[in-house]
């Protein structure tokens, strides 16, 4: 028997029982629809997290943290950094030194009138290029420093907003120039812009052109017993360029990056100066952090407060968890995204906590997958019910057609063809239900994606739908007002159709077997 004949026969039989066929198809429709919509929501959330993470920055950067490491984890020191460098796939690894020195400020402008709580960051100069920070102006060369008191630095793009005018009252609105954000609170609109010649194009946004102004790192090294005044020591910082660490690297964007060697020397010098100043005038850090770096309590109350600072407030120093030579953070740059998993695994195996966008992404996707699994389970249940439905419909059809099947057997219809007839019939129910389910899903998806517009049209106000929170990822909705809520891709449609047809076929197996077993004597039996 030819396939088209079998097909015609099956379709004919389906048409004979329109009502029942329709109901069964609707069952499949609901199941397929549930699965497709569920997956499409998940795809959309993953897409928008990916979109968001892309803005966050580099997918191949790993931050190794000493904090939160396991008990017996070795110190995060130079030896360990060296070990990270030897992991296959690692391009560079550099410790990050960030003195959390509350008594230090960065000053600049006429008479050093402007003051910022600027954070110094020490990196290995060779790592700055590979780490992929965007150079917005100048050069990134931090090497060559003949004079210990003139230290080249790279200025973070948002650092200019940290400066305060000391000649204005602290509460004055003019005391600081503020960044302006776009509507979605994602991007700063008035970052400094330089042309190729190094000219600042938007000087009106700032107190001064930070790349062409002398800056000083001013640190309190003691107190004059007589006058009660602080004793400062100043180091000149020479801005050589401006960098951006991407949307999410707060420290780099607001910091002053220098060669880690220079930062070490500077710290040593400050320590020496503090030690050499009037005895007793300098109070050592009272936070119990006896680390190798200095922590000086300033008598000038709160001068640096309120501004941008990446200070964690807890530890007095970043360059040690209580012991010299160990770092709080190490940055590792990996060659390719593909190598990320392997490198991250190796570092985690040492016992360290890590922070990377890939890791974040993995966690977010894990969360989405988990929710999807749960909802997918519900969808699967509805599809399972649809399968039972098909089985029931087919069994009924076969019971009703016992005589017909008997006649066909007497007339020489081979068993395999009888089996095929009913498998095709069941498969067709599945496939038709699948097609209908996909169509309905596409409509639903269109509806969901245009929900804010539709709501607005109905005068219900534009209340965006936050699918992210639905998947346990709060805040995504905020970023993705324009993004699709449901994304149905070609593969999903193909999969849904195949799956529905397969469910139909599968549900047809038992009924078809039953049909094959019907005796040809059914044809003879008198009714």
């Amino acid at each position: 028997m030819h396939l088209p004949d079998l097909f015609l026969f099956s379709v004919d039989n389906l048409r004979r029982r329109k009502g029942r066929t329709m109901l069964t198809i609707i069952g499949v429709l609901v199941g397929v629809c549930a699965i497709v919509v569920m997956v499409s929501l998940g795809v959309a959330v993953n897409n928008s997290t990916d979109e968001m993470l892309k803005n966050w920055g580099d997918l191949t950067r790993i931050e190794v943290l000493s904090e939160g490491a396991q008990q017996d984890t070795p110190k995060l020191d130079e030896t360990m950094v060296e070990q990270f460098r030897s992991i296959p796939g690692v391009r560079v690894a550099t410790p990050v030194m960030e003195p959390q020195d509350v008594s230090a400020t960065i000053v600049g402008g006429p008479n050093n009138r402007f003051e910022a709580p600027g954070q110094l960051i020490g990196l290995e100069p060779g790592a700055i290029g590979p780490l992929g920070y965007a150079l917005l102006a100048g050069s990134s060369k931090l090497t060559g420093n003949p004079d210990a008191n003139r230290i080249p630095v790279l200025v973070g793009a948002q650092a200019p907003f940290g400066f305060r005018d000391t000649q204005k009252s602290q509460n004055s609105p003019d005391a600081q120039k503020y960044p302006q954000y776009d509507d979605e609170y994602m991007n700063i609109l008035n970052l400094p812009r330089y042309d190729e010649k190094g000219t600042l194009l938007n000087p009106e946004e700032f107190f001064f052109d930070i790349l062409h102004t002398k800056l000083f790192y001013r640190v309190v090294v003691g107190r004059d017993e007589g006058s009660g005044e602080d004793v400062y020591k100043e180091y000149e910082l020479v801005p050589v360029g401006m960098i951006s660490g991407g949307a999410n690297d707060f420290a780099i964007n607001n910091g002053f990056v220098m060669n880690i060697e220079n930062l070490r020397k500077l710290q040593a010098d400050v320590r020496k100066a503090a030690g050499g100043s009037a005895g007793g005038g300098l109070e050592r850090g009272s936070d119990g952090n006896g680390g190798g770096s200095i922590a000086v309590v300033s008598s000038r109350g709160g001068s640096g407060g309120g501004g941008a600072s990446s200070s964690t407030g807890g530890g007095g120093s970043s360059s040690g968890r209580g012991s010299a030579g160990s770092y709080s953070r190490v940055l590792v740059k990996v060659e390719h995204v593909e190598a990320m998993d392997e490198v991250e695994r190796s570092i985690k195996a040492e016992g360290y906590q890590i922070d990377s966008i890939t890791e974040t992404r993995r966690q977010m996707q894990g969360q989405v997958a988990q929710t999807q699994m749960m909802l997918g389970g519900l969808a699967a249940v509805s599809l399972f019910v649809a399968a039972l439905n098909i089985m029931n419909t087919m069994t009924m059809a076969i019971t009703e057609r016992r005589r017909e099947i008997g006649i066909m057997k007497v007339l020489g219809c081979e068993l395999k063809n009888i089996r095929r007839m009913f498998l095709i019939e069941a498969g067709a129910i599945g496939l038709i239900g699948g097609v209908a389910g996909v169509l309905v899903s596409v409509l639903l998806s269109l509806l969901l994606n245009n929900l804010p517009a539709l709501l607005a049209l109905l005068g219900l106000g534009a209340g965006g739908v936050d699918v992210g929170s639905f998947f346990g990822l709060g805040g995504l909705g905020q970023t993705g007002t324009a993004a699709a809520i449901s994304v149905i891709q070609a593969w999903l449609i193909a999969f849904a159709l195949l799956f529905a047809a397969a469910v139909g076929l599968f549900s047809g197996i038992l009924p078809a077997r039953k049909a094959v077993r019907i005796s040809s004597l059914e044809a003879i039996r008198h009714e």
Partner: protein
Amino acid sequence: MHHIIHTRKLKKHYLVGRERVAALAGVDLEIARGEVCCIIGQSGSGKSTLLNMLAGLEPPSAGHVAIAGRKISAMDEDQLALFRQENLGFIFQSYNLLPQLTATENVALPLSFAGIGKTQRLEIARRELARVGMGKRLDHLPREMSGGQQQRVGIARAFVARPKVVFADEPTGNLDTATTRQVLRHMLDCSEGHAITLVMVTHEPELARCGDRIITLSDGKVAENIVQDEKTRDRNRRLLFGETDD
């Protein structure tokens, strides 16, 4: 070798409760190629049982059946289906046309099982229907036809694939006398025209007398096995169909 149907010690019993009912108690038969063989006997004598066994619809309890040299009592379901497709036709007492198919489609059904293409098989079916005088009812559904017309479609369906043997179990059992004659006439014509062996169960002796061989069953055994010569047979036919010698 000229015996197209051949049985040896064919037995069939059914278990009814704990009791063994012997429907066939050892039947030995030879039916020649092209013969019209009529089986008569009282109700419950085992006629239908014998026919079903000859057609391979039911396995015998003992003994064996061979048709056209093939031992069908040893075949499995798959082989039997194929064998029926290639060698056997069947006419039912209650016509058994598929209700959703037209006359032509019903007749074409065995051809579709044999894998013959649609246009070709519909063409063959139409020709076959014309032969049994149904040329004007090609597209009628079974419910739109009388019993006699349905049975003529049934005859066309049984002969359309040119089988070696056609079985008929009381094919006129539901028809009045006039229609019975008409239907029987078509069966005999088809059988004769293509030299197809016809094995027919009937209650009516005057119908049975139209055959070449008349087998009488009694209690599951062959009580009588008469072969008529052509003259007697043709005279009987003329008597039945009310025709004069020509």
